[in-house]
């Protein structure tokens, strides 16, 4: 099938359990593929800041804050949307969109991940 020639096989689905990640070669570029609580994400493993290995970084929900009103303490919580922080300098990206959580002008390219017949693929 022609569509198979474009996409890149990652690993069998059951090898990428929640919390796991894999780094694969996609057309000569390292791409990180993640299973975060059952959702798959894929990002280029190159930080737009200093080209650090962003996909080696820590993954957790984006920290959100709510302000109840004047004089009240800000309430912080983790959103469901995960973010990954580049281990070199902490640049933090929304894994869904690839956009830096504080500056939408800074973007890591993202890729679609599909599961088919027990195998995960990255679609460049």
């Amino acid at each position, binding site marked *: 099938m022609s569509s198979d020639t474009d996409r890149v096989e990652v690993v069998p689905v059951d090898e990428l359990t929640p919390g796991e990640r894999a780094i694969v070669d996609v057309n000569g570029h390292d791409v990180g593929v993640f299973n975060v609580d059952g959702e798959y994400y894929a990002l280029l493993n190159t930080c737009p*800041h200093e080209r650090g290995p962003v996909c080696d970084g820590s993954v957790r929900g*984006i*920290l*959100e*804050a709510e*302000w109840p009103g*004047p*004089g*009240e*303490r*800000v309430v*912080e919580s983790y959103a469901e949307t995960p973010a990954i922080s580049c281990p070199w*300098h*902490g*640049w*933090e990206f929304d894994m869904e969109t690839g956009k*830096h*959580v*504080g*500056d939408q002008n*800074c973007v890591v390219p993202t890729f679609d991940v599909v599961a088919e017949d027990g195998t995960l693929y990255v679609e460049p």
Partner: protein
Amino acid sequence: MSHDVEAVSHHDYRVVDTDAHYIESIDDLISYMDEPWKTRLEKGGEASKSFLLPKSSGDRTVFGRISRDHPYGYEGNDPEDAAEIMDYLGVDASIQLTQLLLAFARLKADDDRAAVLAKAYNDYMLDQVVDPDAGVYTTGVIPYQDPAVAVEEIDRIKHESGIVGFMMVTGGAEPPFGNREYEPIYEAVERSGKPIVFHTGGSGLDEFYLSGYEKLIETHTLGFLMNNMAQTVSLIVQGIPVKFPDLDIVFLESGIFYIPLLMSRLDAEYRKRPSEAPLLEKPPSAYLQEMYFGTQPIEEPPHPDHLKHVIEMVGGPERLMYASDYPHWDFDPPSTIADLPFLSKDDKQQILAGTAEEVFGI
């Protein structure tokens, strides 16, 4: 050849001075004070005045070297001086800020001195000095040490046409002004429709003198700059511009070169640590470019183009407002703006008056 300031002023422009200082004395304020302070100061000697408001100063005149042939120095002003000073500088409207209360951040004890002084200052200025018809205005001093009292004071005087904003003294304020304890103050000022003005104290009114710096050239360089920078960082990172989007924020008396520095450094930190400023909806520099800055003491780099670039970096003439800081030793006459070789006439008018007209409504 005349060396009068008036002679180098430019009569082609309307000029609003956003930071002149009316030199009031404790004696001016006593009759406006609440008891028991009024009696304490009337009956007490000089020591009672220095207890009320601890002050420190170096010699601004460089031990007699700065000796201007002009009557309006540090020896104190009379109410009628305001109009004469404006005429001398060639300004059409003047916001006369406090002199005495630049030491305000020294008041750290939990007593009522800040409230008594602020109220006495505001009433004295309204009663004796402020004259909107003549273009003489002031900013209400906020006794931020007691936020509940501060809100009452803002609400008490906010309808006065002579009060064009509310001032917080930044020199050594603790906790810093991004702290939530000040938020009722920002809410009240935002509600008033008038701007909040941060004016620093320096040269010994800050921690540098206490920590051993010897010369006024050291404390004056550091105190003003560092205190404005410290409070700007606190306000932005703690999200005050996000929490109070209609609050106009003005910073005075540190020149303008520090603003691009903060923009670059804060943005770099924010990209590395966005989870520490989760309220922000855009990079910190964008909030800095929404604030307003008094120009004095404007930097005079060897290459004027460098100043041109800084003005562009901070957001252009729409963010800047001329300030003299008169009669202080490092005052800027209007010619510091009017003579700039790279600005258009419109841009000069914007800085000399336009921005202040929009922000202060004068």
